[in-house]
């Protein structure tokens, strides 16, 4: 198996989890209600734990240790989708992003748990059970708020319209895509996307929200190849600030 192809896949999985984990952690102390403050903080903890599992696999393939990889790169070395780096915005935007992202992530983990590349399969098998709770949380709130007051529906619809081009960017294919599919590592981005569309549509059907016509949207690509919005570099600097004060510190 081509090691570069595996590394590319691991980097995008790990970086998505790390960056969204940090965005989720920004709700700590600021949640609209206590339970949501705790929910986003818990999901942050999960996601950063998940990124550690993938960075550990990268380390086993000869990359630097997880802390170094997580905290010493610049934005243009990150492979996360642009969706996860966007600022939290209001709660409706964070909730929509969480809904769009986690419904895709669980499909990815389900597929990867069947992967021919055993180290990824083992980790994905473990993580898919945990992400189930993230999906349950997102879908419950989308169903509740997406059919509640006029203001809630309007806000969520507007956030959905804004987030969707970035969400489609999650499925940007890697240059190793066909190789990974042929090797049975996973079924590829198009397959993830097709399943994702079905699942999010099923939830949206239970609300007053409508999925914009995908044919009219240009996906925001680039993230998987190191092209990011202006929001990533400040985030990377903030999250690595303590590490960089003394990279050799023992905790």
């Amino acid at each position, binding site marked *: 198996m081509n090691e570069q192809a595996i590394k590319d896949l691991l980097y995008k999985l790990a970086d998505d989890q790390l960056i969204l984990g940090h965005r989720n952690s920004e709700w700590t102390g600021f949640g609209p209600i206590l*339970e949501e403050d*705790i*929910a986003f*903080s*818990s*999901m942050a*903890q*999960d*996601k*950063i*734990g*998940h990124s*550690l*599992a993938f960075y550990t696999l990268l380390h086993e393939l000869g990359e630097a240790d997880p802390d170094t990889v997580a905290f010493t790169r610049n934005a243009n070395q990150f492979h996360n989708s642009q969706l996860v780096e966007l600022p939290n915005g209001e709660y409706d935007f964070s909730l929509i992003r969480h809904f769009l992202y986690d419904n895709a992530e669980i499909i990815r983990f389900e597929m990867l748990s069947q992967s021919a590349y055993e180290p990824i399969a*083992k*980790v994905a*098998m*473990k*993580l898919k*059970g*945990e992400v*189930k*709770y993230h999906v*349950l*949380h997102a879908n419950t709130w989308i169903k509740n708020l997406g059919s509640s007051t006029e203001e809630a529906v309007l806000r969520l619809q507007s956030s959905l319209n804004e987030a969707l081009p970035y969400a489609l960017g999650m499925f940007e294919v890697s240059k190793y895509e066909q190789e990974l599919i042929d090797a049975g590592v996973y079924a590829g981005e198009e397959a993830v996307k097709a399943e994702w569309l079905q699942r999010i549509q099923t939830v949206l059907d239970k609300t007053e929200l409508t999925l914009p016509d995908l044919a009219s949207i240009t996906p925001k690509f680039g993230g998987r190849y190191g092209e990011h919005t202006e929001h990533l570099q400040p985030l990377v600097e903030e999250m690595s600030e303590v590490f960089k004060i003394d990279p050799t510190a023992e905790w």
Partner: protein
Amino acid sequence: MELTKEHILTLLEEVKDPEIPVLSLVDLGVITGVEISEDEHVTVNMTPTFAGCPAMDYMKKDVERTLDKHGISKHTVIMSFDKPWDSNKISDKGRQHLKEFGLAPPPKYNMVLDLDILEYATCPYCNSDNTSMRTPFGPTLCRSMHYCNDCRQMFEQFKPL
């Protein structure tokens, strides 16, 4: 004394979950294997409950400390996802201890963990099944929050996974 797997497991009964001090790591199901080589080197395999659990490193060190304390100096403790943890691995004794501690044990499930099981909980105070999930995220990653419609108390459940 001759080193046996059973002996090591008995010693490890001493090591408790740092956040649920009534539950031993053995009953929690995070000890996935004990091997003793011919030269009496003890290898303990462990697996985390949740991948982001901040207590896992502490638990690993606790296992090492306990082995040292009992004079077992040649040991290796390995944390891996090789045999992933799920909540069915909590022993019956562990479930009983959780309940006495006031935490609903996770329901046992067969193969597929679906939404009904995630949301289902039996009240640890009055045993009612007339409960509803308030949030899947509680004070630690492994606990969810529920409300009992009969005895009208909030309670926590150790999440099914």
